[in-house]
């Protein structure tokens, strides 16, 4: 049993706003749901599967199902694994479609952390009864220093440098300059990144993603429906998910769960990293990108620093165009969760609908991968491989 070829992404929509103080979270979800179903050329009453994560009001599906007035749901999945939830949802939707549980699945993400003053330097309380909290909270583990500890260890073991990490931001900025919605549209240099304040050693302000409002949605459907629509078809051919954590105290921060999801997704898809023409790589921080590139097999472990240098991630210049919308590093990171926008830009590339300055010519094979949570203590990871028919 495989999900290869069992489902297609037929609709995608990214909210244009990056600051939405007058929007409610439910309104943002509604606007992206409408955008995606209209992009697919279908309507509300076609939707019989609904997927959302903890960014949904109430951290559950029932409020939004009611708010959107989805009346024909046969399959519901509110899997939450932080920012990579939506990549998991794509795979789960394909599984549900393959099992005959639904035909047209809506996946939504939205939030307004920019308007609500969210910060990467304050502790995120993820629950009151977490067993690890007494042994972590007193030490102020925040997203920035959790990822910074991973970067520090990678530098120690492999000689990775801050200059190399900075190249990832530089590449993202090259793409963001063409995106009128991007929060940061100015080109930056390696020197700019290194001159920005160190927030948590060794990560600088410009090693970090933006904090933005907004959201996005996609529609996943069975092949017969995709083939009835007059659009370029984006087929799911491989997917995998996992979690990685502290393993009872046997900790290795030099790799992510993508080391497990990548090989499994490639095997299911029957392709190799060398075949991938475009990659959406989750970019909460520069180090997040570097680790996943290694873990997915785009280069060997420890060689990510050299791989990303000299514009190798810039579309039209390097070997692996990544995050051509500007990514979380420059474009947006709605609800502090970057998984949805990773899928959406991969869909644009495969449809040939990316900005002409960053469009990969004849893009037929793309990968989207993500991390939810924090590499420094525990995270989810998910990878999907998409092909244009």
């Amino acid at each position, binding site marked *: 049993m495989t999900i290869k070829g069992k489902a297609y992404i037929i609709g995608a929509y990214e909210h244009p706003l990056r600051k939405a103080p007058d929007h409610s979270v439910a309104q943002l979800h509604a606007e992206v749901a409408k955008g995606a179903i209209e992009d697919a050329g279908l309507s509300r009453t076609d939707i019989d599967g609904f997927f959302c994560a903890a960014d949904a009001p109430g951290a559950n599906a029932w409020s939004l199902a009611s708010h959107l007035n989805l009346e024909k749901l046969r399959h519901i999945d509110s899997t939450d694994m932080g920012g990579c939830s939506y990549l998991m949802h794509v795979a789960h939707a394909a599984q549900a479609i393959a099992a005959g549980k639904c035909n047209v699945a809506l996946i939504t993400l939205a939030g307004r952390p920019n308007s609500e003053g969210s910060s990467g330097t304050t502790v995120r309380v993820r629950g009151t009864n977490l067993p690890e909290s007494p042994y972590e909270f007193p030490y102020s583990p925040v997203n920035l220093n959790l990822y910074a500890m991973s970067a520090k*260890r990678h530098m120690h073991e492999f000689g990775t440098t801050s200059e190399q990490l900075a190249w990832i931001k530089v590449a993202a900025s090259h793409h963001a300059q063409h995106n009128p919605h991007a929060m940061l549209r100015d080109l930056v240099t390696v020197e700019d990144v290194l001159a920005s304040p160190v927030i948590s050693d060794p990560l600088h302000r410009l090693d970090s993603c933006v904090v933005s409002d907004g959201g996005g949605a996609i529609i996943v459907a069975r092949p017969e429906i995709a083939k009835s629509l007059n659009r370029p078809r984006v087929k799911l051919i491989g997917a995998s998910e996992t979690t990685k954590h502290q393993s009872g105290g046997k900790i290795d921060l030099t790799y992510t769960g993508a080391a497990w999801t990548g090989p499994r997704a490639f095997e299911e898809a029957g392709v190799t990293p060398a075949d991938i023409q475009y990659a959406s790589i989750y970019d909460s921080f520069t180090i997040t990108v570097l680790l996943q590139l290694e873990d997915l097999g785009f280069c060997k472990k420890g060689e990510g620093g050299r791989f990303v240098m000299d514009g190798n991630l810039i579309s039209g210049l390097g070997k692996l165009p990544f995050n051509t919308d500007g990514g979380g590093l420059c474009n947006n990171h709605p609800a502090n969760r970057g998984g949805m926008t990773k899928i959406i830009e991969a869909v644009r590339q495969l449809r040939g609908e990316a900005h002409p300055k960053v469009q990969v010519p004849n893009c037929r094979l793309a990968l989207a991968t993500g991390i939810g949570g924090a590499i420094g203590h525990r995270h989810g990871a998910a990878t999907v491989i998409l092909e244009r028919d």
Partner: protein
Amino acid sequence: MPTFNEDRKIVDPPLNPGDGAFFDAAAQGRLVLKTCRACGQAHHYPRTMCPFCWSTDVHWEDAKGQGEIYTFSVARRGPGAPYCIAYVTLDEGPTVMTNIVGTDLDTVRIGQRVQVVFRHSENGTAVPMFTPIAP
């Protein structure tokens, strides 16, 4: 210019049932580890079931309180900054999240030998942290 911060407010550990013994020991100046009688391995954070073999035959043992820094980061911005978060690999095996204190944070390095010290959270709970062992 050296970087010190001994004034940072430490968040109280939000205890669940079963967590008291660890912090009671800390109040007595002891670092304790949950250790499994079935497979012999210590783990952290402490559980009522060994995460390696799922035996429930686990008990507290005193740790030496020494280890080496696996990784760290000095937070320069945000509440309480500057401070140093770290993972320390204890001589008994487990790698534990902690803070490095009582030293110039600019001199902290991976591989440095450290020993446990105790600081108090806002409600007076003793919390284990680590400080470099004088060479």
